[in-house]
């Protein structure tokens, strides 16, 4: 399957949101998941594990998703980061793209959009 053995990091303070995202992704293979419940943990895990794809929420304790994106991009400018948030305002979208995010998905989660993100990045892998 397309995602077998891929490394995917999910940063979201909601354990439910992380589970829902994992459940959708598991339909396309069996990747190695890493989970973070705040932006700082996401940055730390990224530096240690170098995942192939990162999903980050914006509103998180300790460090928000946009700040975490900036820090990850400074460390690795090739990082593939997708923001998944309920706060899809134009300014947040702009901030996410400026920080280096490659995509923005508005919550509630839509399996088709997640699939699109996965195929865009993993097709032909």
């Amino acid at each position, binding site marked *: 399957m397309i995602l077998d053995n891929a490394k995917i990091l999910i940063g979201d*303070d*909601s*354990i*439910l*949101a992380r*589970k*829902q995202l994992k459940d959708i992704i598991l339909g396309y293979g069996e990747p190695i998941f890493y989970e973070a419940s705040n932006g700082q943990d996401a940055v730390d895990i990224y530096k240690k594990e170098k995942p192939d794809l990162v999903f980050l929420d914006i*509103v*998180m*304790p300790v460090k928000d998703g946009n700040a975490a994106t900036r820090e990850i991009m400074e460390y690795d400018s090739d990082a593939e980061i997708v923001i998944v*948030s*309920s*706060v*899809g*305002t*134009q*300014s947040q979208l702009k901030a996410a793209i400026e920080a280096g995010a490659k995509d923005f998905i*508005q*919550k*509630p989660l839509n399996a088709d959009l997640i699939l699109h993100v996965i195929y865009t990045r993993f097709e032909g892998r």
Partner: protein
Amino acid sequence: MYAQFFGNYLLSRKVITSEQLILAMKQKSIDHMKLGTLAIHAGYMTANEVDQIVIQQTHQDKRFGELAVKEGYLTQSQVTALVKDQGPDFLLLGQVFVDQGIIDNERLQELIIDYQSENELDDYSISEETEENVQHLIENFLIATERPLSPFEVSFLQLLFNNLVRFIGDDFTPIYPYPCNEYPTNYCVSQQIHGEFNIKIYIDMSEETAISFASRYVGETFEEFDEYVQSSVDDFLNLHNGLFNVNISNERSVELLLDPPYTEDNPLLIFNDTETYLLPVVFPFGMINFILEITVPG
């Protein structure tokens, strides 16, 4: 709540005639929901499986739920949940048409799926009935606040109603809001919105109510008050407030900021310097209390 709309839907699809609809609406008021219809609606059983159990019932003097559990179509906890939650009103109307032989269970299953997918899209805009409920709520809030509501407050209340309908269900009744100086908490989560409009929203409910709330929100049956149930309550609040910020940004070009949700550990909340209102909302599975702590500018 949506029985009238489902009736119109069936008429427009020429599934039934207007005479059949009127008769069914009368019959609906005296009928009870059948477990098989509820199981189809919940997606636990297919129409074929329900028909098989109904056939078995003609040979054995056993309850539908008992046979469905025996065949492995339902778990005992699903039966309990289905019996407890009698499902949306429109479903009973559909069941009447099955009982009268106008449609079969398979056709009902197709119509439920089509109707719900169309209805889900409608929920993004305000239905007439929700609009009416929101107007009532706003009028009641005017009585509680004794001042005109700001456009932010009106938008907030409208969206709260829509999100309850969209994510939890339409079978709720809001109780009159009233000013609140202190509040003893159960499971309580709060979230602060900052900016041109400052409001802290609390959502509070008993653990038992939270289990049912989470089951509806996620679409899975939860049995105990675990971290997923707690996270569902946080998630609903965060999603609602996030969507509110998006609406305000789109409609008014005002950017509001959102703090992460916070689980209140204080058994008693005390509100001294803010305008605070308690808005109880009653669902069949329990009461949800929303507390709106508003900082009025100036």
